[in-house]
């Protein structure tokens, strides 16, 4: 997919973002098909956990998400090698993740958060680790790192191809769902090689 080129990433333009959170719900929806989330998020029975977060400050508002750093500090910090580069994206192997939070601390963008894991529509429990619940012991729910995977692990709704308005770029890289769904077109999939070519072309025109 990326032929040894730099990783793509999604970048938001705070001049356009109005903070409507359509990206957050869209992100959740396409990543939770196996949790019973339908074509959109309506049928959800698990909490809404997006992999990007709309940040609101005094002066701006925009979603923040993983930059897919080439020398990913999160992967460097991960003691169990659960974070790897795959298909042109830095991805978390959720089954391998131990919930140690090292990646969240290492990430300079604050793009990783830890939440409960879900599978098949219910909480995904640890095999042996138990916790005391009132008087009984019960298996503790797994806590894992969530972050943007450029929709590599997502199942987009089938309708998408038919509507066909916001398809992937010429390199064949699929447009992440947050980018497609943003009503203000505030999100862009930045593909470094394309950016570089565009800039070179601009320089040649001078």
């Amino acid at each position, binding site marked *: 997919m990326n032929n040894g080129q730099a990783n793509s990433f999604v970048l938001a333009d705070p*001049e*356009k973002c*109005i*903070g*409507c*959170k*359509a990206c*957050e*719900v*869209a992100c*959740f*929806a396409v990543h939770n098909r196996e949790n019973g989330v*339908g*074509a*959109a*998020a*309506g*049928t*959800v*029975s698990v*909490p*809404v956990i997006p992999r990007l977060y709309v940040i609101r*400050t*005094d*002066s*701006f*508002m925009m979603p923040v998400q993983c930059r897919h750093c080439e020398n990913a500090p999160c992967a460097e910090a991960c003691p169990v090698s659960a974070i790897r580069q795959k298909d042109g994206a830095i991805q978390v192997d959720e089954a391998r993740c131990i919930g140690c939070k090292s990646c969240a601390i290492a990430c300079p963008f604050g793009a990783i958060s830890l939440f409960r894991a879900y599978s098949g529509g219910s909480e995904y429990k640890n095999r042996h680790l138990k916790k005391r619940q009132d008087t009984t012991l019960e298996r503790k729910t797994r806590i894992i790192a969530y972050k943007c995977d450029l929709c590599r692990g997502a199942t987009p*709704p089938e*309708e998408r191809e038919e*509507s066909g*308005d916001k398809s992937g770029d010429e390199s064949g890289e699929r447009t992440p769902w947050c980018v497609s*769904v943003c*009503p*203000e077109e*505030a999100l862009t999939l930045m593909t470094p090689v394309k950016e570089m070519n565009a800039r070179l072309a601009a320089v040649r025109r001078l």
Partner: protein
Amino acid sequence: MVDKILTVCPYCGSGCNLNLIVEEGKVVGAEPANGRTNEGTLCLKGHYGWDFLNDPKILTARLRQPMIRKEGELREASWEEAIRYTADRLLAIKEKYGPDAIMGTGSARGPGNEANYVMQKFMRAAVGTNNIDHCARVCHGPSVAGLSYSLGDGAMSNSIPEIEDADLLLIFGYNAPVTHPIVAGRIVKAKQKGATIIVCDPRKTESARLADTWLPLKGGTNMALVNAFGHVLIEEQLYDKDFVAKHVEGLSEYIENVRSYTPENAEGITGVKAADIRKAMRQYAGSKKAMILYGMGVCQFSQAVDVVKGLASIALLTGNFGRPSVGIGPVRGQNNVQGSCDMGALPNVYPGYQPVTDAKARAKFEKAWGVKLPDKTGYHLTEIPHLVLKEDKVKAYYIFGEDPVQSDPNAAEVRETLDKMEFVVVQDIFMNKTALHADVILPATSWGEHDGVYSSADRGFQRIRKAVEPPKGTKPDWQIICEVATAMGYPMSYKSTEEIWDEMRGLCPKFAGASYKKMEEQGSVQWPCLTEDHPGTPYLYEGNRFSTPNGKGRLFACEWRAPLEQPDRDYPLTLSTVREVGHYSVRTMTGNCRALSQLSDEPGFIQISPEDARQYGIEDGHLLKVISRRGKITARAQVSERVKAGATYMTYHFWIGACNELTVDVLDPISKTPEFKYCAIRLERIHDQQQAELQIREQYESLRQQMLAGAGAHE
């Protein structure tokens, strides 16, 4: 088998088109369609706001069976029984107290224009009163009154798509990114195309953040700022003398009225720097295509109508009418609040804005409906508490698709009003707080389950379509009302919504050419649309001819009045109600969408400044008590630098943190719109946060159980 049904989003007045995706008779998704206003985009409510159709019973449950209160309890009844009972009780009250003892509402939400037409016809022809009003009264009522006075039409003079081609946008008390994300897209585009954006708002809203110039006026000082705008235009000779001479009246009186509002004087009242006021007006007057957009920050004050007229005067003075991308836009909040006004769910006008006091109009409707009609203006919705509790004049209330206990000010008083009435009918899709006080509940079909027409904020008629079968036991709103009318001895019956629509447009010259066929072909038809071969009107007042009696625009200015309830030692902070992007109105719909309810849930937030938070020892995320002279609730603190010290903001969607328990029922003298944007409160810190969190959860669960039981639903 996957079906796609093209319809219009049921949230906000943007009028976005979308396809509902239906699998095996259930809605499973939505995708944007290429509508006139949304052009293939949707906000999160459009994308994910359909889930309430699947009735997940998160906040409340769908009504599926008529109910009658017997021995104090709501009990399931047959349709026949419920219709008969409703008709008999209404007839008895009419007999005993006269028709004006009965009040009815229209519904600005899911039912659509046809149901509103039928409802106002029912009230006027079957009951015999003009006591019909709806929630435009608590939102853009002042726009209808003010713009009708100034320009002749109580609606946006411009179109939503035109926004992006304006050179300058003057945005007053309007936070489009939260209320109309898709309209906000046009504002963002305008900015990208080089437009200057000026925002007047006390809070640093998303609109203010997008602005080139933000005029942070003190809450409740709108009229002083608008007068100062006028003062600058006159004093600096920035106004269009030729346009004013030809098309506008009232200049000399206007000049007199704004004379004392120098920017320096206004600075003392509003806190906005005099130089900024001057600069804003120089930019506004110097721009070729300047457009005003405004919202609830103008309308929800006791001096709302004056400010609407004042803003229209600014546009009149600068000749910003009769062309694309200029004019004045009150962007309507609820999806069909424009439509409910269009259909005459108002106490002073028949459908098509034809006054009930106009003998000629009355004669036309009397002939069409075959009955003598009352000639005096009916009661306003917001006057009902007073008319019931103080004057004992209204005995029955037919509430159709509204939840006044949640949406109207001073909730305790609203409840007392409902309980004092002899007979209350609630016709709705969900069990709600108002229905707890009903004597009869009539369950209706929802958006997605019936056909009809909505009017978008920019006067655009668009078809809504049935996508799924309604729950058994429900009926379309217009059909229920027809059955009650028939049982009362005024037979009404229609075969389809199109038949109702055709009767309506036969009586309304402004809408006469907007047939179902044309909507099918064009997608959207903007009124006025006078004839079958007319495509509709994107912007009003072409040729600078206004719809006022003499065709001229009318200038207006008057003295600024401070809001009524000022902060004092006991209640030192002000409260303004606002909205939140992921929720809609009284939250029965979005609160029952799994994804939306999770993004933001009970008890709701109160925004406070860091200074006030420090003073009260409140941290971001803490629960706290909010208290006014009328009530006391719990909410969660959201400490924000965007808020000025002394001011607080709460969204009105939440049921536990219900800000309308606190708000004051002071009304604008003309439009009778409440002052939701200003009342005095105090905050109390809660020391045991854990206990408070627990209490909120218990309160939520008990409220939910009450709703489920009320709807006759069992988990």
